[in-house]
């Protein structure tokens, strides 16, 4: 099995401390662990390469603490992890849209965070161009965490439990937004989901034997869905209108909100299908609750509009059996190693 995250436990802690002392290396007084990032075999190069943000165990752990820290919200009620739950591949199970501070709600579904390092843009409209610039958006959004970034920096600076972690991660106790974002990028950028049954099948490993139905589903996905949901990441990260009728009153213009181009009206970023069985509900506004209904949308529910994508316009021909086979295959994309890895879990208090 190849996992992108490798944990190396070194027994020579004492020696490391002495050597590390003058090199300003990171020091962990417990076990010496190393978090690493590896591009899985056969995958494209990631968009985020940790360039200028050297991945270390201490940077990762700091990022993880920030990700799960409710003090990053105005009333200290929610953290990033509130709407990005590990068991849901860091989506928000059962919520069409998520609850921010004071139970405020937005208009978009909380997406999963698997394989963020390969994403070329962030959010459903792709408004954010870099992984390190992603967290400031939900942190400052009035219907999400609603805290000015300057206040986040102040809170983290004042918090006694962070001081040592910044020294370990960055060499000194300076707290600024750049360090916060870089640490969070170390945590999110290493969230790699590459150990599903489909991956084992692709690598010819034990546990990767597909049933007849799953095989048929894979072939159907390759034939009907691969224009947008391209292997191995199951997205081409483009923006497309998949034929969902705009909701009156919400009128979320999607990508056009960023580009101001009528040709981008109602286009949204193509989501990856990885871990899709655990990230319900579906679509940019969470309007569809089950995978069966998602597939049915592409068969009979595609609304015509000037920007509806040619790949889905008029619907995709599928039999009832095809639908079942596709759903059966989609379930092989769940990476139970990733969604249960202690490395990404909220640390015990």
């Amino acid at each position: 099995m190849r996992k992108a995250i490798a944990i190396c436990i070194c027994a020579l802690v004492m020696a490391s401390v002495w050597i590390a002392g003058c090199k300003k290396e990171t020091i962990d007084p417990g076990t010496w662990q190393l978090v690493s990032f590896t591009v899985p075999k056969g995958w494209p190069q990631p968009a985020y390469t940790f360039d200028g943000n050297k991945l270390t165990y201490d940077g990762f752990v700091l990022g993880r603490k920030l990700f799960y820290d409710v003090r990053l919200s105005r009333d200290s009620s929610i953290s990033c992890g509130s709407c990005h739950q590990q068991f849901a591949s860091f989506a928000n199970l059962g919520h069409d849209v998520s609850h921010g501070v004071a139970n405020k709600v937005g208009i978009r579904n909380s997406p999963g965070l698997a394989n963020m390092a390969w994403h070329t843009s962030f959010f459903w409209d792709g408004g954010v161009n870099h992984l390190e610039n992603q967290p400031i958006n939900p942190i400052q959004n009035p219907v999400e965490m609603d805290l000015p970034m300057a206040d986040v920096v102040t809170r983290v600076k004042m918090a006694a439990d962070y001081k040592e972690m910044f020294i370990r991660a960055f060499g000194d106790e300076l707290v600024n937004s750049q360090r916060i974002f870089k640490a969070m990028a170390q945590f999110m950028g290493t969230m790699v989901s590459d150990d599903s049954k489909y991956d084992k099948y692709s690598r010819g490993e034990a546990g990767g034997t597909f049933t007849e139905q799953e095989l048929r589903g894979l072939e159907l996905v390759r034939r009907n869905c691969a224009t947008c949901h391209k292997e191995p990441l199951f997205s081409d990260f483009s923006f497309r209108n998949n034929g969902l009728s705009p909701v009156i009153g919400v009128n979320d213009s999607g990508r056009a909100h960023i580009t101001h181009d009528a040709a981008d009206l109602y286009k949204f970023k193509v989501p990856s299908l990885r871990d899709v069985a655990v990230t319900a509900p579906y679509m940019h506004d969470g309007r569809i609750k089950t995978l069966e209904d998602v597939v049915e949308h592409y068969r009979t529910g595609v609304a015509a509009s000037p920007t509806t994508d040619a790949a889905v316009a008029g619907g995709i021909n599928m039999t009832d059996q095809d639908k079942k086979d596709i759903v059966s295959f989609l379930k092989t994309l769940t990476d139970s190693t990733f969604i249960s890895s202690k490395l990404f879990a909220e640390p015990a208090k």
Partner: protein
Amino acid sequence: MILAAMASLALASCEKKDPPQPDPDPTGTGKVVMEFFNKVGTADLVLNDKAYVNEHGDTFKVSLFKYYISNVKLNGAKGTYTETESYHLLDQADKPNMNFTMSNVPYDTYTSVTLTIGVDSTRNVSGAQTGALDPVKDMFWTWSTGYIMLKLEGSSPKSPATGGTISFHAGGYAGQYATQRTMTLSLPTAITVNDNGENHVHVDADVLRLFKAPTVFDFSALYAINSAGQKAKDLADNYANMLSVSYAGL
């Protein structure tokens, strides 16, 4: 705990041990101080209290005026000096800091300065930044990544917005709607950088020029810009003309 203590000792013992390095060429460089002055026509800009009239004839007041100056270069007889990490946020509300010093300018005679109003596209796509580019400076669009190159806020009786506010945030770094503007300003007198002392360059920014040419701003119709696009581009084409050098010398 013991290990942590040992570690911090080890770290502490390494700090600041390097002896001061002698200047490799003590006769070679001098200081040039760039000082910025926000004006309305020929008068000094005063926030909040003073009313002004734009090209269109609309009365207005200014409550906030800040902008980035980046990628500063001095063009000399022997060569061009390029400031490193050249990003400066100039804020009328923080007048004492509306200047910066370039301290390693090679001895030469300089006749013009090249600079950018705004932030180059590279830094708009390079992830988390710090210093003048820290997003806590409130010059960064979070929902559509990118720096706000220039911000002017205030009020005008002509503005139909609630409270008669005017609010112009110019951003967008790519393609036809890019709002960073690079210009070369000639110095009224050439400056000679040598061991005679530090030179000063006074740059005036005229607020009236923001609303004058090529696009005349009518505050009853155009009173807010808050995203990249044609309006922001129009404002950028105007502010490309807002700077001039009023003084250069010791």
